[in-house]
């Protein structure tokens, strides 16, 4: 059992939780994730380890409500317990030798790119961050990102805050301004990562993306998470989750993410009814 120590709503449907998980907190590195299961009948879902305090033994996750499991998780509060927590899974982000980095985060992906930016800052790299959301209300972690970035650029799709446009547009502007960039780390919705990779490809800038394929065991046993990178099949849970953005088949990823759409809807509808019944 894992205790929830703290719960904060970051926006309408994005929640931050601090968990009591000393063993994982001690080991976890930027880029790694956990798998949690709320209760006996629950699904196993992967979430990035956004932050950890090895001394206090705590682990931070940030998630967006998209379906039944995340909706149910969002109703839990400090003091409640999760049945299962496995991790840290996946390979840590490869950060060695990166001196000038751009961290691009879209939506809840800002939470996922934050630890990478923090680790880069810690190793003395220059960090420029571009974070975006559909609108002002949905933007998360602005203060935290400011704290770890030498320069922070904010965009919103509707122009309600920061620059009007997509993060990929802002990145393009930045590159064209002559900014020296060793590597771009881009994390967010699949179309966003695809757009960013398309921009950087033109300039030959190395781009790392984190793939959120559907997972079951996350130990390399099932192959649910398979993605195509450079024409080869890889398992995102053990070979990734981070890959070369220029080699990833994003369309395949997007179509595999739709595999359970009907069931996910059924599950969510049932859950909503249950909640209203109470």
């Amino acid at each position, binding site marked *: 059992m894992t205790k929830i120590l703290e719960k904060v709503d970051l926006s309408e449907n994005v929640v931050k939780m601090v968990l009591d998980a000393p063993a994982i907190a001690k080991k976890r590195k930027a880029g790694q994730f956990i798998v949690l299961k709320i209760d006996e009948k629950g699904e196993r879902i992967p979430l990035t380890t956004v932050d950890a305090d090895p001394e206090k033994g705590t682990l931070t996750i940030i998630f967006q409500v998209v379906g039944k499991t995340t909706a149910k998780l969002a109703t839990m509060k400090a003091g409640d317990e999760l049945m299962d927590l496995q991790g840290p899974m996946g390979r840590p982000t490869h950060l060695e030798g990166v001196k000038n980095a751009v961290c691009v985060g879209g939506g809840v992906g800002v939470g996922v790119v934050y630890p990478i930016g923090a680790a880069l800052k810690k190793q003395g790299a220059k960090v420029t961050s571009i974070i975006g959301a559909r609108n002002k209300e949905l933007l998360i972690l602005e203060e935290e990102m400011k704290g770890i970035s030498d320069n922070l650029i904010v965009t919103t799709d509707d122009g309600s805050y920061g620059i009007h446009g997509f993060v990929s547009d802002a990145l393009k502007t930045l590159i064209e301004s002559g900014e020296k960039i060793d590597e771009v780390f881009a994390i967010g919705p699949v179309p966003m990562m695809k757009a960013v990779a398309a921009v950087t490809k033109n300039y030959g800038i190395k781009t790392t993306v984190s793939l959120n394929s559907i997972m079951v*065991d996350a130990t390399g*046993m099932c192959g649910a998470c398979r993605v195509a990178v450079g024409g080869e099949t890889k398992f995102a849970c053990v070979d990734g989750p981070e890959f070369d953005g220029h080699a990833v088949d994003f369309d395949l990823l997007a179509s595999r993410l739709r595999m359970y759409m009907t069931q996910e809807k059924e599950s969510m509808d049932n859950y909503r009814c249950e909640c209203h019944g109470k």
Partner: protein
Amino acid sequence: MENNEKKEKKEKVPRHKMPEQDPKVRIHNYNEVPIGYSEETAMKEAERCIQCKKPGCRTGCPVGVDIPAFVKLIAEGKFIEAAWKLKEDSALPAVCGRVCPQESQCEKFCILGKKDEPVAIGRLERFAADFERNSGQVKIPEITAKNGKKVAVVGAGPAGLTVAGDLIKLGYEVTIYEALHKPGGVLVYGIPEFRLPKSIVEAEINYLEKLGVKVVCNAVIGRLETIDELFAEGYDAVFLGVGAGAPVFMGIPGENLSGIYSANEYLTRSNLMKAYLFPEYDTPIVRGKNVAVIGGGNVAMDSVRTALRLGADNAYIIYRRSEVELPARAEEVHHAKEEGVQFKLLTNPVEYIGDANGWVTGIKCVEMELGEPDESGRRRPVEKKGSEFVIDVDTVVVSVGTNANPIIPMTTPGLETNKWGYIVADEETGKTSREGVYAGGDIVTGSATVILAMGAGKKAAASIHEYLSNK
């Protein structure tokens, strides 16, 4: 002379049939297919055994179960005692009685099998173990006083569970680290409920916990802690029983389309995550109408029979050789046929076809014919030119074998693996290239059987004991 007479007499009684659920009924439920012997039938079947002085059956059992002794106890109506006898040699008799390939092991060497059908050793084993479990009289064996030494077991499959059971009885402090949220390995995530009820595996694990074994789930060794960190933490030896759990795909075009599963994923969703009970359980699974399973082994049979229970109208086995070469147990093939599985033999997939949404709609196959025998002695299937055809499907389960999982070797310096990534360990002792690190089961041999994994666990436990006693 006397023995011969006895034999003559006994041979007249035919082997007792196992009562089974009707195929038409059972494809709509997940309950076990064979129902089990009644006490009366078990005693009658046990009486068929002629109590050989040099029992061939026993040599066929990888862990050397004292078959005549436990069978005799059943014949005498001493069912609990029979179960205890079994447990002297096998830690999981209720499991082995169900899933051992008896026809190629113990029963193959039963003397009665020469002229008639062998004693139904597996069914009797299952009967005795079930009787004990249901009676509530599970005996907790005497445990030697604690010796102060600690052993870590990685992986809670049959190999790891056996090591833990043996070492705890010898006075070691034993902790099992299991990557998933439930212990049992393939017994819980792979083999379906209708062949091995999960409550049986749970009971066996509860028993180990009663003996004092600590089971830590959600602990992926290599990630949460490395082998070196386990030693630094004070463990005196480590056993690796991490299985062969990495699925193999064929590498043909379209294999990543939606609707295409590995058998591991399909079975894990269904068994471990209980997706067959969706939406009561949260994990979804595709309930295909036309499901093809690629492969002809036991895992393929489990997958195709699962597809039927999930509501398939057409469930196919696509296998590139002919019926005689099917690697699955004859009993499983028989069960599959009874349930309506369609066998597309001498057929090999070459490409998957998908729709605009990226969902599989068909398998382009070629017909095969058998050519010259290959190294394994089986006739090599070769493609018939121009024989391409398409099978319409909406779900595919690829069941063509497994590979070694890379996490442990990737994170354990100095641990020798072979060219396929399996851990190199001595067959008799389980010793690996690292001092104090032992390995056994599928991670050493590649995908094998429950009883062989248990056998390897037994040998490793004995050699860990020897190593730590002299240390």
